């Protein structure tokens, strides 16, 4: 019996030749991540483990991004605690506000060359699964697991079963990788991949950019998945050449592919040309509907950004559609570049000017309103179209507000028309 990509990566990190689903293993980690919500409690637990220091000061990344620039005194105290810990431990991957490499954790770790094929990564943030786009195993854990991993460089895993998604064809115009992952979550449900790995394969993979793959893997958790993972190809290598040249030069990574006789719990074939323009209605990502098949939904706010859709490619898409257009009067459109690098590139390319001319407001890189932190909280009864990843009750503010998850093109069109709209309508305007 062969192994899936995930199983092979886990076996390698556990020092085993073979693992099978359900097996409990102890694995060595290549990177351990925490943010400003999950790290403060982890620092307390770390102290209780009596470890003299972190296992490797180059393999612990701490990213203050959720409530930053700090929204209140408690958040500032939390960030101070992380800052002092990072300094005391001599961490090389601590990203201060304003640092050229700072930003939203799952945008900056790949951009800063900290992720490569074959890595095993845990992060105290559920969207850590994003890094599977580079052919790495990455999954979210809590603060206690983060603390113990900071101390030991290891953690335990239950080897997951897998669902294979065989992609064929090409996405149609105005349909994006976000539509694809929302469509998949709508198909299998928010616990459709519970405890399992979501393994992407097939000829359709090569049509997806690295930004696309990062968006798709980012939302594996919204189907209950342990991780999402893509095979490694030329696009992965080109991405490494751009963002992780040192690791590429040193060949400090391992390309692992699934065995031909790997066993999957099930295989789902998807023709990318059939993926519809998809929006997730409140209050679960699985409540998907196809744009054009529902009654008018008027909105109050649009959010474009986050670890799901805050990359340069997303901002380029948004600016191309916003050019010469205006956000409808009375609607707020908030754009959050995913990192300082993305912000600066967007500035150089003139994207920020397009947004300002269209009457959008551009924020610093932060998670901000995605989790209802700050920078765009919703009032009672308000509706928001957002390129983020969750639309739970109260996610972006008042428990009686509503979040509709969409792609970047649908978000832009919705901002222009003040209702959930298709980008095709902009062309016809």
């Amino acid at each position: 019996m062969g192994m899936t990509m995930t199983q092979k990566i886990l076996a390698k990190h556990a020092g085993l030749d073979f693992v099978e689903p359900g097996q409990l293993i102890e694995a060595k980690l290549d990177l351990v991540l925490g943010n400003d919500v999950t790290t403060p409690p982890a620092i307390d637990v770390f102290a209780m483990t009596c470890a003299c220091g972190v296992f490797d000061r180059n393999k612990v990344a701490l990213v203050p991004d959720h409530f930053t620039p700090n929204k209140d005194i408690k958040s500032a105290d939390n960030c101070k605690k992380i800052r002092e810990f990072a300094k005391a431990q001599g961490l090389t991957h601590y990203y201060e506000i304003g640092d050229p490499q700072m930003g939203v954790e799952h945008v900056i770790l790949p951009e800063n060359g900290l992720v490569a094929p074959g890595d095993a990564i845990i992060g105290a943030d559920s969207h850590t699964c994003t890094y599977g786009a580079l052919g790495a195993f990455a999954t979210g854990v809590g603060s206690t697991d983060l603390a113990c991993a900071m101390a030991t460089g290891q953690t335990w895993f239950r080897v997951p079963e897998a669902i294979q998604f065989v992609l064929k064809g090409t996405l149609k115009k105005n349909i994006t990788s976000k539509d694809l992952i929302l469509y998949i979550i709508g198909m299998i449900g928010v616990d459709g991949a519970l405890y399992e790995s979501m393994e992407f394969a097939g000829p359709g993979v090569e049509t997806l950019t690295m930004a696309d793959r990062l968006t798709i893997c980012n939302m594996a958790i919204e189907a209950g998945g342990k991780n999402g993972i893509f095979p490694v190809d030329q696009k992965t290598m080109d991405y490494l050449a751009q963002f992780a040249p040192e690791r590429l030069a040193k060949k400090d990574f391992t390309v692992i592919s699934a065995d031909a006789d790997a066993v999957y719990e099930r295989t789902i074939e998807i023709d990318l040309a059939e993926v519809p323009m998809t929006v997730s209605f409140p209050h679960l990502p699985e409540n998907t509907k196809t744009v054009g098949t529902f009654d008018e939904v008027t909105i109050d706010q649009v959010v474009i950004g986050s670890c799901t859709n805050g990359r340069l490619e997303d901002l380029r898409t948004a600016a191309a559609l916003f050019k010469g257009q205006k956000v409808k009067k009375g609607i707020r459109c908030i754009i959050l570049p995913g990192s300082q690098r993305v912000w600066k590139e967007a500035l150089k390319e003139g994207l920020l000017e397009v947004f300002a001319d269209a009457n959008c407001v551009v924020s610093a890189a932060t998670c901000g309103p995605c989790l209802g932190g700050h920078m765009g909280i919703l009032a009672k009864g308000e509706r928001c179209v957002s390129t983020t990843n969750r639309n739970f009750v109260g996610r972006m503010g008042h428990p009686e507000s509503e979040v509709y998850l969409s792609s970047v093109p649908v978000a832009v069109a919705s901002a222009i028309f003040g209702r959930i709209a298709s980008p095709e309508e902009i062309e016809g305007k």
Partner: protein
Amino acid sequence: MNAKGKVFKYGANVDTDVIIPARYLNTADPKELAKHCMEDIDMSFVNRVQPGDIIVGGQNFGCGSSREHAPIAIKASGISCVIAPSFARIFYRNAINMGLPIMESTEASEGIADGDEVEIDFATGIIHDITSGENFTAKPFPAFIQKIIATDGLVGYIAKK
């Protein structure tokens, strides 16, 4: 070890944002978090919950964020056990690490009504609904997980070792 209390019953996919909304995540103090536990799904929870009470949820309980603040808030509010047909995987791991007992049972989740008085024997996995007289069984925890829960979580367990 046993648990006994009144049941608070909720539906499927109870997410970490309704268990403890992100607007309160600027602290990890259990007492502060307990004040807002379940706030966005049940405003009356914090005023009604008594030490020992039990939450019964539907499938995929605890889906969403990796915030350990969610099991911390539930435990600090006095809840002695959460019963559901299935749990989201990060919540499952966090609950055990925090020493919050959780039990998987579809029958109990379906059979127990809101407000029922329920008694749980963690060693055998027997869930007894005192109000209806019905018995349900869940898979009991292995010994080491029972020890983690008895020592108030993974940290206490490691310290004791």
